[in-house]
């Protein structure tokens, strides 16, 4: 709960962390350092550089208190939309894990015309973004990640004409924002886009498969010994997840980086069971601040009567010392 949060947030990067994977998803770039944001991508099919393409965006792991949030894009030529429909990709939430793996295999087999890219936002990235001094909320983080991925596709030479997005926040505003950023591309933002547009379903499958694999094989950076991996779904209301969070709560440090510190579930547990930590940007308005100051002067009063610590009130310490926060002591 300390130095971890002080780190600068890892904003999505566009240049680095891109790895071309020939066959199946290779998660090693993320797994070597799972504290940052990482991009994985398939090879760009040649046909996507020459023909008009459509692109779908979806995310997996927005709600859980554990593990990363994964953003996925999937793109293919507009002319291949029908073929994609026939492969029966569907909203990843309606599928079992095996079905998803199966469909991802199918997408991989169609790599001559289907491409994908993923941005894995580590739980640490999410925590540090949301808890930094100037708050960077989950919606802004989601939007920026989606924008980064679309830009990646454009930078790779994919001839985008249509983009389909599942909504984050109000659909109209988001659509307007994206349209402005990518003039010349028709942007469609819809709730439940993952069940309406096959290309969004495909993106959701890529994202969900990546998240499942990362969560299953999470490499704990912390020295926790044999970690109990039975943490359930990772959603705050899952009793297994709650039990796991209770078990792995360290009174001083809170949680391993696997946990999103910015989730109220984690925060409530840390506040009730952990050591209290004060930051100088803690919100402390009016009454509370006054209360604290009262507390302090009360304490000073008590220690004075106990240890004879009555500093001469007329003596004013020279500013050389006050400016440097230096003071004399009368006891240790």
């Amino acid at each position: 709960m300390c130095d971890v949060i002080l780190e600068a947030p890892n904003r999505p990067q566009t240049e680095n962390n891109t790895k071309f994977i020939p066959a199946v998803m290779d998660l090693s770039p993320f797994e070597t350092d799972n504290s940052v944001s990482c991009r994985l991508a398939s090879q760009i099919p040649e046909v996507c550089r020459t023909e008009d393409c459509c692109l779908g965006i979806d995310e997996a792991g927005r709600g859980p208190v554990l593990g990363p949030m994964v953003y996925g894009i999937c793109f293919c030529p507009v002319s291949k939309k029908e073929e994609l429909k026939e492969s029966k990709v569907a909203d990843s939430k309606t599928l079992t894990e095996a079905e998803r793996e199966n469909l991802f295999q199918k997408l991989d087999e169609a790599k001559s015309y289907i491409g994908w890219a993923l941005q894995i936002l580590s739980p640490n990235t999410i925590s540090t973004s949301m808890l930094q001094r100037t708050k960077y909320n989950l919606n802004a983080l989601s939007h920026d990640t989606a924008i980064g991925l679309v830009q990646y596709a454009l930078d790779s030479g994919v001839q985008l004409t249509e983009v389909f997005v599942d909504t984050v926040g109000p659909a109209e505003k988001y659509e307007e924002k994206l349209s402005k950023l990518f003039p010349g591309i028709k942007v469609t933002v819809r709730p439940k886009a993952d069940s309406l547009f096959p290309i969004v379903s495909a993106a959701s499958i890529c994202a969900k498969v990546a998240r499942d694999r990362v969560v299953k094989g999470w490499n704990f950076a912390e020295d926790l010994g044999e970690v109990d991996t039975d943490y359930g779904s990772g959603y705050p209301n899952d009793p297994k997840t709650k039990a796991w969070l209770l078990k792995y709560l360290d009174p001083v440090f809170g949680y391993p980086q696997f946990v999103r510190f910015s989730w109220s579930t984690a925060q409530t547990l840390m506040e009730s069971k952990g050591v209290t930590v004060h930051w100088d940007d803690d919100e402390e308005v009016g009454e509370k601040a006054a209360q604290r100051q009262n507390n302090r002067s009360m304490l000073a009063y008590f220690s004075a009567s106990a240890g004879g610590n009555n500093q001469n009130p007329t003596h004013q310490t020279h500013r050389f010392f006050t400016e440097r926060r230096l003071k004399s002591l009368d006891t240790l």
Partner: protein
Amino acid sequence: MATKKKRTPHVNNDSWVVIAADSAIHIQKHDSDPAFVRLRNPATDVASLYMLSSGDAQLFEVKAFEEDFHSWFVGQTVQRDGRLLFLTPMDPLYLILPYLIKSGREGKFQPVDQVVMDEEFPACSRLLSCTRSLASLHHIAEEKEVGSLKFHRYSEEKTMNWLKKKVERTVTALKARSISVGEGVKSTTYVRMKSESDYCEEDYLRYAHGLISEYLSEDLSKALLNHLQLPELTSPKETEPPSKKRKLSDKPVEAGDDYTKFNSADFARKPPKKMTAAQKSLAKVDKTGMKTMSSFFSPKVKAEK
């Protein structure tokens, strides 16, 4: 997010993070350990913490850096207070001085070990064991030797000269360290664009006097100010401009007062809305044939032809 944090009172630690010179913690053979001692602070006249090195050879003052929201990670433990203690060498004469002044009022020469005594702070006699103490007593006292015994009597003149030297040496140190001594500067991290030469000598002297006064009684501090021929500042706070807060907004800046009304022709003719009783009675006076006051001061109007 709701913050339901309760601040627990500070608990005294049994360990501290200290920065000290090697000489402060070095233990000489067969001698005692360095020890924290409570002594009478010459400026506040109450207890402050000091340290005497092994064998009482050297005196150190203890200063604590303390700021909100700091903690230490020490090895595998967390220390709640982010306090950093500094042990810095200090001239023991500053602590001996008040005792000499007190006995000096009797005007008698006395052995110092009978002078430097304090029921409240018995450790004060150990100050005389410091290497520098006895050898430098002549800076603040007259000495007389009778046989093998030495007697001392406080001398204000000597003390003032000694303190003046201290101030001058502090000025040198302040300049060498580029410490900003100007009146307006409050932040130590603020990088000044002005060069050192922009401070006048008096700024340095006052600053150094203030620093030395941290180790002197109020009376002595005032006497030193006289000796340095620095006039006492009456109220430095009045020289500060009043703090003005302006609300930030996106709107264009507008003048607070409308001065254009003074330009309009009818401004001058409008009688003031509220007049005092005296003004009212004056206004009722018959002014026919009287010249206006201003006509006496304006350039002479050419006589009509």
